[in-house]
């Protein structure tokens, strides 16, 4: 079932207003006063049309941890948050370190149909940090993996990291590093600083992240590879990346929505919803990350959406799982942290949440944004809305959001993926309809 969708009078990121006609999976026409017979008409007056959001850092948990999340559930959370593509991290069980696993994840994503699911391949076998995974096989598989990461663990062995950077160059991929010096963070529970000292929780020092980033950018320079740094969380890391970019090193960096808004003061509650890796940092770090994102030092926002079952958070801080979900709230948080503060305009939001993450991930079709002939991947956002964010706003299996009971601006009203709607009138389109649409698109 292919859809024809006519979106009337949306605000485009360049400030203009335009109708958008979606037909046969692509943006067929842009301009004023468009018409199409039989089209689903969406009144977008007052809404911003953003290109479909692309998350470079999502944990879908399947295979192996279906009690936390599934590809289908995570895809629905993504669509509800305005995403049309996600990169599924490799720390599943079995680990996504073979062509078989990445193809399975891609197939599950295709069948669900809510978003493009791009598997991320592991850098090392079993994320063990000792032996390179079959990067070539994953790259040439049907999943066409281009991003490789041991996320959750750092590729801390410098020689292995060097080899990975070099090897991935041969398939035009990128290593996405989880920068965490393991010895400096043994048993770490939260940011090391004033609050950890008072709470008596073992600290995760900023230097453990900054030292690895510094090492890796120098390695990337030495071997002429490109490097992507996951979830940059400290002011010092921003400085290191800025320095590297000034030297012409091919490094890109991401920041999570939660690191753009939340600080370690929240840990005083010992509420495990605020336990995440890398940990929530200080106010100074939040401000430096915002500035870094605004000036382009940090290239993109990526959610590090990490679903956990309730029992993993409803317990003492020490034994709680690290991670928080973010797909459903990401755009609102960026709106609050970056747009309302005047640091980023909506074109900037499209850059950091769509075109640049697609480029880093080697995902085609997003480079021109919403343009005639481009794949119809877009979302309609009401920037005037405001809501007390709650579990009712969550669409995946997990509820471990740090933003619950916070007032957040904006609301996703429509998401169009591959030319068919996945969200309409603020509600997810049902599973069967989306699956049928996806099937028809694949033909």
């Amino acid at each position, binding site marked *: 079932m292919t859809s024809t969708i006519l979106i009337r009078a949306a605000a485009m990121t360049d400030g203009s207003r335009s109708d958008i006609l979606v037909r046969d999976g692509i943006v067929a026409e842009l301009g004023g006063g468009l018409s199409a017979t039989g089209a689903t008409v969406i009144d977008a007056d007052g809404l911003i049309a953003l290109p479909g959001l692309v998350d470079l850092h999502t944990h879908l948990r399947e295979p192996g941890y279906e009690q936390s999340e599934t590809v289908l559930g995570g895809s629905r959370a993504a669509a509800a948050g305005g995403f049309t593509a996600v990169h599924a991290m490799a720390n599943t069980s079995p680990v996504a370190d073979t062509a078989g696993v990445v193809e399975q994840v891609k197939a599950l994503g295709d069948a669900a149909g809510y978003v493009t699911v791009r598997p991320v391949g592991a850098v090392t076998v079993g994320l063990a940090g000792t032996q390179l995974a079959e990067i070539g096989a994953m790259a040439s598989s049907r999943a066409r993996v281009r991003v490789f990461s041991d996320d959750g663990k750092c590729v801390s062995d410098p020689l292995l990291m060097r080899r990975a950077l070099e090897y991935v160059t041969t398939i035009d991929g990128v290593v996405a590093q989880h920068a965490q010096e393991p010895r400096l963070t043994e048993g770490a529970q939260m940011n090391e600083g004033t609050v950890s000292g008072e*709470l*008596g929780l073992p600290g995760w020092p900023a230097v453990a992240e900054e030292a690895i980033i510094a090492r890796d950018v120098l390695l990337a320079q030495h071997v002429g590879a490109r490097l992507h740094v996951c979830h940059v969380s400290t002011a010092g890391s921003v400085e290191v990346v800025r320095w590297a970019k000034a030297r012409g090193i091919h490094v890109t960096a991401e920041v999570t929505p939660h690191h753009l808004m939340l600080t370690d003061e929240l840990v005083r509650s010992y509420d495990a919803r605020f336990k995440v890796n890398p940990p929530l940092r200080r106010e100074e770090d939040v401000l430096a990350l915002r500035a870094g994102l605004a000036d382009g030092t940090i290239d993109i926002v990526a959610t590090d959406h990490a679903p956990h079952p309730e029992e*993993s958070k409803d317990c003492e801080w020490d034994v709680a799982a690290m991670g928080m979900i973010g797909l459903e709230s990401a755009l609102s948080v960026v709106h609050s942290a970056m747009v309302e503060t005047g640091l980023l305009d909506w074109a900037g939001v499209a850059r950091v949440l769509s075109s640049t993450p697609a480029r880093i991930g080697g995902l085609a079709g997003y480079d021109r944004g919403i343009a005639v002939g481009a794949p119809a991947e877009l979302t309609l956002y009401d920037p005037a809305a405001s809501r007390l964010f709650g579990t009712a706003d969550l669409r995946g299996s997990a509820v471990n959001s740090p933003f619950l009971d916070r007032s957040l601006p904006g609301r996703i009203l429509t998401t169009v993926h591959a030319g068919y709607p996945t969200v309409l009138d603020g509600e997810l389109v049902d599973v069967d309809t989306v699956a049928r649409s996806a099937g028809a698109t694949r033909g």
Partner: protein
Amino acid sequence: MRHLLSTRDLDRATAIEILDVAEDMADVQQRAVRKLPTLRGRTVVNLFFEDSTRTRISFEAAAKRLSADVINFSAKGSSVSKGESLKDTAQTLAAIGADAVVIRHPASGAPQVLAQSAWIEAGIVNAGDGTHEHPTQGLLDAFTIRRRIHGDAARGRDLDGIRVTIVGDILHSRVARSNVWLLSSLGAEVHLVAPATLMPVGVGSWPATRGYDLDEALATKPDVVMMLRVQAERMSAAFFPTAREYSRYWGLDDRRFAMLGAGSMVMHPGPMNRGLEISSRAADSAKSTVLEQVANGVSVRMAVLYLVLSGEKGETP
């Protein structure tokens, strides 16, 4: 007082009230009949996820002298599902009808998690959580200092101007944390002495001065020198090179003990490593408050149990 989770959130008036009630409890300990009927019919559970016989029997004596029923629950849980077990244990205790839970737990914040949870309604008393706080230890130390200084006229008094030097593993010490917050809110001037490796990051924001040199600190003739226990496992983690070197620089040996002023006191939360952080001469001297601390611990814990368990439910401190 709904719960006692930390000394950081005790204001001066509340702290003095607890110490004053403890004075009354201490008076009772001097009588032939040491028992009070106050908490008859109430159930106090000692929920210990860590071994600590000293703290447990102190709380047990306190609860029994107030006529409460005491259930000792030693729950050294498996590491597999500690999270589940705290919730399950709490719900079990709620079902049994615990009115107060005295909890010792290796995880910092576990008592607060319990108090905030919907798992159990009981009053929660923190008997030591990870490397966070040990509020009744802080209170009994403050009580001991106040009694030594003011004697029978201690009621209602604060610790204004009293100079306390705390020496040792500040980083991992819940006793140090509870003492820093409490003693400073009572008006004492707290000075911390430790090797830099055992000084917490961010200690600059604490209401205390800091130094690395114990001799320098003792030369200022502090009123109180509180020695902290050195855990053996700190050595293997390279916080300091050897026990001998630690003892040489941060131990209260005989030479340093001789430097102390006439009216000063030596405190230790126990158990002591004699010869490591404190010499036997110092520990057994008239300046030492070690046994008073133990005795006062019962009075202070009686006061805390009384204040947590009396009063209407939902009353704020």
